[in-house]
């Protein structure tokens, strides 16, 4: 098992190398001038040139690249100009916020879309099938920033059901001791129900925004996958054996239909982690998405590189997790792996 994991990770190395190179090139092409930024508002061209030399920005690209790789190897992701912090620290502090939001969004989405997909497949062609299709498609058709704005307007401004969109916690609370970095979990570990409620009240609206957006792919895949499994021979066998419809649908069909759904979930998760940059912006969520946007807009190399690298590693790990999950669900994969 361990050997397989190592092997699986090994196959991801070329993409990671690719990511490092592409990110490096992309950030060097960005028109911003780090040296000008460092030199301050009234810098003279000489001052900028001096800083350039100091930062090694006057070197040829391959040399800069080597220096960058050397830094990476020693775990140094550089400094962010905008936040003034080491990128590694920034990302470590912000990743849990994004992950918690994205996971909760995905969880909400799964809780709605999977049953919806199953129902749509079981009652193919019925009103619920059409409803599933329309709801899911409408969800994915909404630009997240638009959904987020509307939800804030309605639920915070008009109805007052949600607290102010001001990040992860209202300011009178202090964050729970970090165990997982997820406030919802950490507050429960600390046994602080009030804190949990406070964290929940902040997170549900952005999570719903994300969930709405991710409904479609999951519901669609669940439906399609269930349809094909329901039409398969072994489901017919199960029905012919007199198994209860619930057992046939959930125990037999759904577990088999789960495989493509898991793959979709993985894709949706990594997609959401990247796409929630906009949601984070709308809800002032202190995650890595909004961090990356700011950095990109201000041509702040290091955070962009760090963010992309972190996401790439996350993506690799995610795929690994999916493979492992796949193996748990499907015995065939276990053997062949």
């Amino acid at each position: 098992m361990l050997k397989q994991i190592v092997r699986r990770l090994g196959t991801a190395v070329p993409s990671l190398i690719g990511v490092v190179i592409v990110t490096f090139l992309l950030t060097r092409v960005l028109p911003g001038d780090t040296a000008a930024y460092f030199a301050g508002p009234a810098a003279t061209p000489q001052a900028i040139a001096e800083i350039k030399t100091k930062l090694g920005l006057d070197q040829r690209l391959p040399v800069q690249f080597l220096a960058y790789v050397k830094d990476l190897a020693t775990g140094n992701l550089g400094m962010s100009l905008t936040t003034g912090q080491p990128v590694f620290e920034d990302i470590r502090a912000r990743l849990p916020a994004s992950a918690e939001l994205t996971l909760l969004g995905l969880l909400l989405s799964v809780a709605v879309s999977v049953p919806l997909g199953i129902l749509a497949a079981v009652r193919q062609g019925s009103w619920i099938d059409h409803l599933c299709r329309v709801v899911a498609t409408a969800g994915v058709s909404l630009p997240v920033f638009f959904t987020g704005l509307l939800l804030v307007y309605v639920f915070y401004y008009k109805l007052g059901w949600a607290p102010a969109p001001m990040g992860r916690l209202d300011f009178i609370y202090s964050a729970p001791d970090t165990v997982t970095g997820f406030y919802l979990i950490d507050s429960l570990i600390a046994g602080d129900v009030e804190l949990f409620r406070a964290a929940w009240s902040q997170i549900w609206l952005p999570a719903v925004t994300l969930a709405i957006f991710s409904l479609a792919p999951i519901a669609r895949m669940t439906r399609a996958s269930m349809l094909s499994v329901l039409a398969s021979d072994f489901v017919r066998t199960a029905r012919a054996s007199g198994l209860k419809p619930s057992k046939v649908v959930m125990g037999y069909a759904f577990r088999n239909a789960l495989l493509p759904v898991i793959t979709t979930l993985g894709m949706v998760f990594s997609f959401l982690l990247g796409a929630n940059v906009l949601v984070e912006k709308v809800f002032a969520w202190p995650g890595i998405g909004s961090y990356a946007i700011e950095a990109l807009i201000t041509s702040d190399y290091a955070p962009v590189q760090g963010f992309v690298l972190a996401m790439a590693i996350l993506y690799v790990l995610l795929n690994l997790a999916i493979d492992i999950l796949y193996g748990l669900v499907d015995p065939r994969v276990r053997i062949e792996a």
Partner: protein
Amino acid sequence: MNRREFLKSASVLSSVAATGVAAPAVWSSASAQSARAETLLLVSEAGPNNLDIHGVGTNRPGYEVAWNCYDRLMSYGTKTLADGSVSYDQNKLVPELAESWDVTANSATFKLRKNATFHDGSPVTAQDVKWSFDRAVSVGGFPTFQMKAGSLEKPEQFVVVDDHTFRVDFIRPDRLTMPDLAVIVPSVFNSKLVQSKATEQDKWGMEFTKQNTAGGGAYKVAKWTSGTEVIFERNESWACGPMPSIKRVVWRMVPSAGNRRALIERGDADISFDLPAKDFVELDKAGKVKVVSNPVSNGVQYIGMNVTKPPFDKLEVRQAVAYAIPYQKIMDAVMFGLGKPLYGAASNKVSQPVWPQAHGYNTDIAKAKELLAKAGYPEGFETTLSFDLGAAVVNEPLCTLVQESLGQIGIKVTLNKIPGANWRGEITKKEMPLIANFFSGWLDYPEYFFFWAYHGQNAVFNTMGYKSAEMDKLIDGARATAAAGDWPAYDKDVTGFIDLAFADMPRVPLFQPYLNVAMQKSIAGYQYWFHRQLDYRTLRKA
């Protein structure tokens, strides 16, 4: 209170809160209620990137930290403006760390407060002041540049007389030297603490002060989560002024302007700092919250033309542009009337030595066309109008209107939004033909503004690449006469360079923008500062 009850009562409570009677609903426990009374919740778009004013690339929100957490020798006095709002008074220096001072032709001697301490309890001495000033003139970059603006250039100028006496020697007579000692940069650092954190590579301890405050100011940073929030606690042993009334300040970064508005309107935030003109106007009209607006001192929103390159090297072209700009439309649609118009004066000759003031151009398309034809561009030309993406709220509609209007005289304009950091780089290169930009000087003196924006030394802020021997003479003259106190000559020089600027028109001033703040009615003591950041020390909460 459980969640459901909370939801039910939330809207009721919050409507109460909005009228300023009770706290908003989000506070659910008694301890939280009392915390709220002494806590100030502040929201703004961006937060600091560095807690040290001497730091490399410290941004404007960073100034706010330095202002509140460090003391200077002196501060500015206050004055009440015509509209009832309170502003700093650039003409009045008041004691802060220094109890008193003596100014002679060659130096200024400061007596420091004996009871002043740093946050760690150690006493503030003249050695600390010297070390801090040495640091400011030595680290390079912005602090050094700012010190230089007041002719504070060398460590030798800063002399420790005794533990509580400190002297600044002047290297030349400069009207700006004393005022420059009251800006943020000459803050006093706890030199022992910082030196203990200094390393071989970092002998000024910049890494430490970037993350920590090492001063003796009225507040100290209790927690800083970059990009998210800064939490300040009051320094209970502050001796350099009256004890501030606010115990705790929570400063949250809320990037979306809409959300910031909602927060203040619904009473969830105490102060929303630096709001868009439209929100200000509407909040003012609604009357639910208190709004204060002050013209940004020495600040001008303008259209700059690159005079080093055709077609803007031709005076007529520049004048044509100045006639083609839809000033009133901009004031109405972009600024919602909030801003001091800098156009439409009776003539281009000014009588008062004040800045900013209006020029004589007005929207006159026919005249613009005529001038353009005279310049040899009867059919117009194509050009690019660039602006900073970070300031798009104002610049985008503004440039759109300018683009439309210039189109009427045949100038085909493409708009180019440039993301924040690139903007500074582009400005430095001085290659953009046409820009929309804003510039303000900390020190509110006309010659200070012109020295940076029009002088042939060609500083970054002279975005037009404008050079004129006559202009340089007038500006240098004004600096000299001001230092010498020769006011009639000074007035002549100032009106002279303003007239010249309007005649040559390398940049078209549009308006002087306002700094807008909205706060709950329970908040009092707001004061406008030249650095355009908030001073917590005077704020009170009813």
